[in-house]
């Protein structure tokens, strides 16, 4: 895959506060990258720098291997954390204007705006002022504003916040289409980790202005997982596992137990013991969810 959007060693201070301390992030063409981290970790600052809304003190932003200039940046699409549109401007007129600011010709802007409003199901409101729309519809128009110029790159700050489940599905569908049909790399930040887990290929976790974990979600789960197994054994005493060193009870689940295995403890040995004691109904390796990984990283 060719290099898509790359943030390389971004640094930024606000007075004495270090907001970004060398943040690097890759989003290959056609990939969907989740950007997660606690509030105030630097997600919004990094995204603003990617869009050129904010200047970095150091580091650079590249697109297809080249440092982005204004022309390249105009082909980016953005939803800022603080949503904003002209409240008194009509929906269609506003989208046409924003497309024009991104360098799209008047005629193309008109047809693109109409098209995107139809895709997002708000075409019937195109003549209404933005302020008269429901919050959900305003969100859709905000998304339309990010997509109206057919951007090469999408950077979305909390695009799912405030959306109901249907709105969430629509957004996922639209983003999926953008990356599959046009190879658009998408970076979005979110606190909804189940959702990130569901739709992203990769995730970058930022804490205190530093990327602490980055990679494919599956790999992260493998590498960072504490080794947990879920065992359901019939006819065994409560502490049947106690004879194997390095095994500790993590918790109980209906009909069984979650055991944490220390380094060097063979899970097959645990299975053998279980079978020798009773009838094993269930034995599986438990992978941590992204949310669990997140808590682990943040608390450490």
């Amino acid at each position, binding site marked *: 895959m060719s290099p898509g959007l790359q943030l390389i060693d971004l640094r930024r201070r606000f007075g004495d506060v270090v907001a970004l301390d060398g943040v690097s992030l890759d989003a290959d063409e056609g990939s969907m990258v989740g950007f997660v981290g606690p509030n105030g970790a630097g997600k919004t600052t990094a995204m603003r720098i990617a869009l050129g809304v904010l200047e970095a003190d150091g580091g650079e932003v590249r697109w297809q291997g080249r440092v982005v200039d204004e022309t390249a940046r105009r082909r980016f699409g953005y939803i*800022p954390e603080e949503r904003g549109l*002209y409240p008194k401007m009509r929906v269609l007129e506003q989208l046409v204007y*924003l497309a024009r*600011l991104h*360098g*799209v010709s008047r005629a193309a802007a008109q047809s693109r705006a109409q098209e995107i409003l139809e895709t997002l199901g708000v075409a019937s409101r195109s003549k209404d002022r933005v302020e008269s729309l429901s919050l959900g519809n305003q969100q859709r128009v905000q998304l339309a504003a990010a997509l109206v110029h*057919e951007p090469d790159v999408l950077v979305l700050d909390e695009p799912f916040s405030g959306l109901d489940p249907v709105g969430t599905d629509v957004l996922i569908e639209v983003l999926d289409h953008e990356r599959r049909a046009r190879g658009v790399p998408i970076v979005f930040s979110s606190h909804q980790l189940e959702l990130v887990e569901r739709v992203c290929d990769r995730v970058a976790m930022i804490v205190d202005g530093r990327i602490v974990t980055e990679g494919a979600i599956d790999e992260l789960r493998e590498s960072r997982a504490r080794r947990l197994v879920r065992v359901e054994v019939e006819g065994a005493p409560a502490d049947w596992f106690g004879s194997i060193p390095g095994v500790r009870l993590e918790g109980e689940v209906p009909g069984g137990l979650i055991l944490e295995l220390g380094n060097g403890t063979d899970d097959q040995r645990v299975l053998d013991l279980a079978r020798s004691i009773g009838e094993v109904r269930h034995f599986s390796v438990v992978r941590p969810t992204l949310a669990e990984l997140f808590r682990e990283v943040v608390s450490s």
Partner: protein
Amino acid sequence: MSGEPAATDRGMWRVVAARDFSVRLRDKGFVISTMITLTVLSVFILLRAYTGGPDLFELGYVGDRSVADRVAALADRAGVEVSVVGFDDAREADAALRDGRVDAAVEGDIDDVREGTATLRVLRGPPDLLDQLVQGAAIGLRIDAALSDAGVSDGTVQELKDQHPIDVSPILAPDPDRDSKAAVAFVAVLLLYGQLFGYGIWVATGVIEEKSSRVVEVLLSAIRARQLMAGKIAGIGVLGILQLIFIAGFAIALASVTGAIDLPANSLSAAALTIGWFVLGFAFYAAMFAVAGALVSRMEELQNAIVPINLLVFASFLISIGALQDPDSTIARVASLLPISSALAMPVRMVLGSATPWEIVASLAIVIGSTALLIPLAGRVYAGAVLRTGAKVRLRDAWRAAA
């Protein structure tokens, strides 16, 4: 990839300008302000048309008109027009006084004047100037009588009266249009003040509108802050120019129809001056207003933020009004050179013909030069402040943020 031909980076301000222009054009405030300006201007022009002009008196007489004619002749030499109206008796004259048809009425002939038995009938009191003219004519009549009583021949008396013993020698070329030029200059400075201030405020509120609705971050992801500021100033400025052209056209048309100001060519050139100075002054002021708007986040805070600019514009306005009376005063000269006030003070001095060519050149150079310096500075502060919401941003912080 859409394959759209991207407009050049530099041209983006035009897209911004087009939006600001059309949004403001459709704004109710624009329509209302245009109506108010036209109304104020119409009142001024109509007042001048029907009350101003050279002094004009109606002088009545009862019976013999010779005294009234002497007054009219004397008035004519003084450049005052007195028309004479005859009445059959005092009651008729009094009725005319009550109706305001005449300002005063003379009762008595030349002999009555000589003997001191003539009267000037008035409603409550005569207009000062008319009183002086009537008394002057009467004094002349009595001197005539005294001279002929002393045996001076009628020819000599006539000769003495026609003399013009003291020559008038003006040190500056007399300007018969001084009065209408002052009126034109007054209108020009009034329009410039309203226009510079009103459109400056629009720039500031436009900036705040984008800041408070937070659309500015979406805009800045597409274009740079400087282009946004330039586009806003240009769009609103062009609207201001077109409105001025419209208003000036209306004013000149109304003034020529009503004859309020004898329109020498200088009305047209004054209109051109006004528009030219609006462009120069607006570029300077609008950059300051844009910064003021960028420093605050809400409309309510704007009033405080623009207090210094308000004071500067208002002080310049007062000085320029003063310059209508005395365009050569030191303060008017200085004000017509400073970039803060020259857009208001210089047009006044130019219309009145008091500005020397080098002063005009210097004033233009200073205002253009300082605007060229101010705009990049303002652009930097604007870029540093426009994304920061919440508390009012300090100038120094905004300057540093954009480093």
